[in-house]
């Protein structure tokens, strides 16, 4: 495949993905298919426990699907591809407590040389220069998640996977982090895949919302979110378009959740 063909590939193509975990159990994912174009911000929502995290682990190539495929720019990977970065929900389990904020951010960088500059830039992007020499456990939850964010962008990825990244922080911090992530994706022309249970967040941040069914999860519907950017926490959320889209996604997710409770 020549280079120009590779450029036209979707950054991520999930095709007919099925995964049972542990092996032999009832499948968690069942024939799940969707695509993500370069530069696109995709949010995956679904009822709780529907398998969003399993999906993300398959997409990150941390886990291999039973059938179907995950292609990154048309290629299969056994390990996370070099241009992919992940921000996990539980920052206190993914930041290394024995390293300072700065050294956590630098962890994925090889060699030294120009690294200091890159780490400084990443720290600046998440507003964390003042805490660079503290340990992660000495700073607030929001700051820890910003540290994790800096660590994932310092390697200049093309695709950022966000696994419920704002679920463990308070409401105001969550709003600040949402704005920060959108701004970073915009300036770095990053594609992002956000897994979340928060429908407002999904509609507010994404270009496309993928709604999953209950277990075993498949794609119920893909909804294009054509709200103009930059988006504003107040103005965007008050537009009739936002409310309509939110209503539509909410209805779909609730329908699935009701199926589950029956």
């Amino acid at each position: 495949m020549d280079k120009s063909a590779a450029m036209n590939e979707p950054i991520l193509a999930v095709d007919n993905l099925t995964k049972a975990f542990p092996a032999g159990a009832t499948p968690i994912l069942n024939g799940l298919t969707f695509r993500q174009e370069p530069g696109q911000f995709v949010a995956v929502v679904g009822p709780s426990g529907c398998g969003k995290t399993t999906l993300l682990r398959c997409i990150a190539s941390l886990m291999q699907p039973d059938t179907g495929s995950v292609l990154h720019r048309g290629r299969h990977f056994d390990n996370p591809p070099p241009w992919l970065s992940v921000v996990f929900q539980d920052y206190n389990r993914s930041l290394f407590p024995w390293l300072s904020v700065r050294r956590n951010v630098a962890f994925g960088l090889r060699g030294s040389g120009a690294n200091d500059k890159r780490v400084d830039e990443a720290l600046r992007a998440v507003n964390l220069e003042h805490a660079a020499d503290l340990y992660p456990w000495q700073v607030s939850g929001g700051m820890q998640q910003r540290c994790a964010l800096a660590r994932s962008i310092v390697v200049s990825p093309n695709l950022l996977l966000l696994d419920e990244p704002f679920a463990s922080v308070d409401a105001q911090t969550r709003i600040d982090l949402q704005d920060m992530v959108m701004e970073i994706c915009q300036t770095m022309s990053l594609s992002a895949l956000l897994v979340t249970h928060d429908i407002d967040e999904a509609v507010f941040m994404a270009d496309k919302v993928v709604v999953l069914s209950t277990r075993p999860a498949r794609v119920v519907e893909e909804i294009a979110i054509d709200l103009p950017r930059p988006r504003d926490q107040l103005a965007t959320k008050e537009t009739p378009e936002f409310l309509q889209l939110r209503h539509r996604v909410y209805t779909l997710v609730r329908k699935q959740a009701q199926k589950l409770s029956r």
Partner: protein
Amino acid sequence: MIASWEAVRALGFVDRRDLPSAASIVETAAVDLWSGGLAHAVLATIGSWAPGLAVAAVAGAGAGIALALLPRLEIATRPLLEFVRPIPSVALIPVALLVLGVGLQMQLFMIAFASIWPILFSTKAGVEDVDPRFVETGRVLHVGRAARIFRIVLPAMLPSFATGLRTASAIALVVAITVEMLTGQPGIGSYIENVRLSGLVTGMWASIFVTGVLGYLVNALFVTVERATMPWSTENRDR
């Protein structure tokens, strides 16, 4: 402590000649340390304690890491370890005497054998308990398998290793002194025996007191080093 000591003396259950006053014990301890005999004994004990513990630390950590990372090795050696580990180490003194004879070599073997277990098992547990999310984080940061062991697993298990080492340091001291008492190897153990046989009751208590202080200082040393080198471990945070 001094009050309870004096209270026991006052009650008179034990002959007062066998229980000298706290003040005379401390005074004798100071004099015996200063005059050299007891100080030499303390240094001799440290001189066998430290290398014995060092051997146990290296071997115990190495074995603990290997057993945690290589499940097949763990399964193959489990029966052996389960059998050898519960043997009280002092019960092996006759065997060690038979094979190695009296001397520093035998003492070092005994210290290392007795103190390797807490190090080995805490290191193994420390490696096994490393949060899988840490390792996964390494994978998504494109850190290779070997580098993940050196940069993630080893630092993450260090506090467990340190706890094992601290426990082992106390055991090593007990065994060092026991071997000295039984075999006359120079050190606090043989010093205590000698003053006891000479009928120097206060001198005997003084050397026991010094032994207690040594044990306390050893523990304090390890706690201090742990706090200074691992401020991030959950045990040391907020101190």
